[in-house]
């Protein structure tokens, strides 16, 4: 099976956000594989172990993304492709266009991505790619089984579980609960250094023109939300505190 995994490098979720010069500061930040994409990587490796085949990684992003790709290779993926080109606008339409133009020629049986990225969180790119490639998708899956050209998946829909069968090729996005990603082993890390790693620019992707990549949306401002202030710690015995809380919710906060 020819499996492709879409991967984005993101801030660690314990990072605070600091703004500098109109953007988010990357100084001293710990980078990780987007947690939802990590489930996708793990699932792809497990499927290749079960059914045979190769796991390819695909990312569009800055050069630092190479680190996250190396980690995924160390987990057990076979090959990585990084599309790095500053001409790609920060717009989901454009990014999906680039990635799907590249994937169109790869003959993927299965494409896996994360449910959303923990940074921008728009949750668009993977599903857009399925549409661009004309293949079915199921978003937010917590279980994936493959047999005779068909996938049976569980989709998490706000707590309900939908069981869906899908003809391959297809695209799926991973939800928490799909699996428990493995840690790269030391031999894995050593092997990853020798695995194929391609860095491409837009010029290497046939069938894509810069005009087509015009961003459909753009950012006009970036700010931090107002910081919350610590409120009051209630005093007295616990039953009195409960009564005090209700009085305050009613009279001060006016929410009940």
């Amino acid at each position, binding site marked *: 099976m020819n499996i492709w995994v879409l991967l984005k490098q993101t801030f660690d979720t314990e990072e605070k956000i600091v703004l500098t010069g109109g953007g988010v500061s990357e100084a001293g930040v710990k980078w990780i594989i987007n947690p939802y994409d990590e489930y996708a990587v793990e699932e792809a490796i497990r499927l290749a172990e079960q059914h045979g085949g190769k796991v390819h990684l695909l990312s569009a992003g800055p050069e630092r993304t190479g680190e996250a790709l190396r980690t995924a290779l160390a987990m057990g993926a076979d090959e990585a492709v990084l599309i790095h080109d500053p001409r790609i606008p920060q717009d989901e339409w454009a990014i999906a266009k680039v990635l799907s133009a590249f994937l169109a020629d790869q003959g993927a049986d299965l494409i896996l991505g994360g449910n959303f990225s923990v940074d921008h969180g728009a949750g668009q790119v993977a599903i857009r790619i399925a549409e661009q490639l004309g293949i079915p998708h199921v978003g937010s899956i917590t279980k994936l089984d493959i047999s005779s050209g068909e996938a049976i998946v569980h989709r998490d829909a706000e707590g309900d579980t939908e069981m869906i069968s899908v003809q391959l090729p297809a695209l799926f996005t991973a939800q928490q609960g799909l699996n428990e990603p493995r840690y790269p082993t030391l031999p894995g890390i050593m092997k990853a250094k020798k695995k194929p790693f391609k860095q491409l620019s837009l010029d290497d992707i046939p069938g894509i023109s810069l005009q087509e990549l015009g961003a459909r949306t753009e*950012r006009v401002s970036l700010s931090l939300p107002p910081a919350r202030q*610590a409120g009051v710690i209630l005093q007295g015995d616990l039953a009195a505190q409960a009564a005090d809380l*209700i009085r305050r919710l009613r009279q001060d906060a006016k929410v009940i």
Partner: protein
Amino acid sequence: MSRTILTFAEIRNHELRQVAVESVSAAMKIANTIPSDIACCLLVQENTAADLLTRYAASLFAQGANRVYVVKHVSFAAYHAELYLSAVQQVVSATNPEVVIFGHTAIGRDLAPRLASALQAGQISDITAIQHVEGKLIYTRPLYAGKAVEQRVFTQGSTAPSVITIRPNNIPINTPDASRSGEIIEVAFAPPSLRTVVRDVVRKTSGALDLSEAKIIVSGGRGVKSAVGFKPLEELASVLNGAVGASRGACDAGYCDYGLQIGQTGKVVTPEIYIACGISGAIQHLAGMSGSRVIIAVNKDPEAPIFKVADYGIVGDLFEVVPLLTTAFREFLEHEV
């Protein structure tokens, strides 16, 4: 001819979702002073009773919708990506909208990007506010689950519609005006050939309120100690007509389903009241709930970081405090009625 704004009127458990009403309100906000036709796309099961349909439509009209396009199919009871997309595309063809609005829900998150791509359109996801500034429509949305906020616009030059998803509980709605009415139009639907089959749906949450739409959330962390430990939280939530959530710690420990997880991984919630029980307040959790209007923290540890963002803190054992709160709220609510 006036322009059309199309909203997706999502149904869940035979009820029009609150976010469907908020989507019409968002359409009104976008329309501003320019005369616009607000149309809603309503997908219902083949045998939906006429009076139920009328009731759905009435709620949408009362908020400002002019027309409701109804598509019927036997398989619309469960979400089916291919079927839903095809039906929405038919309504889009019939209405030629400038803007298409979805709720940022399990369905909207799945459907909107697929539609946007099919229409060669841009999309702005998970919008929390809409403003008109100097003739421009500005959409506000969170980044890093709310640790930062960005404002985005649709660029000029594309003839494709603008697709947006709005976060539930954030776009204010107008007082419903029951005197308003509109037109209900049934759209004939020719389903496409399908590559996916929905085999079964296990409704674990039947009747339960979804976290993203809950006005009150009672949330538990590692301090809850076990699956059974969630019982008192469930009781409190039930008295308050709220939903139960959890921190990553509680989910990872196996006390509850990942579907309840609130945080940068998991759900971002913005209820009126958030009651954090036995949650220390890791940064990744705070990102998911700091947009709540009022935060109440119950924790044994007076140094827990959750108290730094809480409006009201109770230092104590949650197993003592939560039942006291349940009793106190129950008495208060009985008094109110």
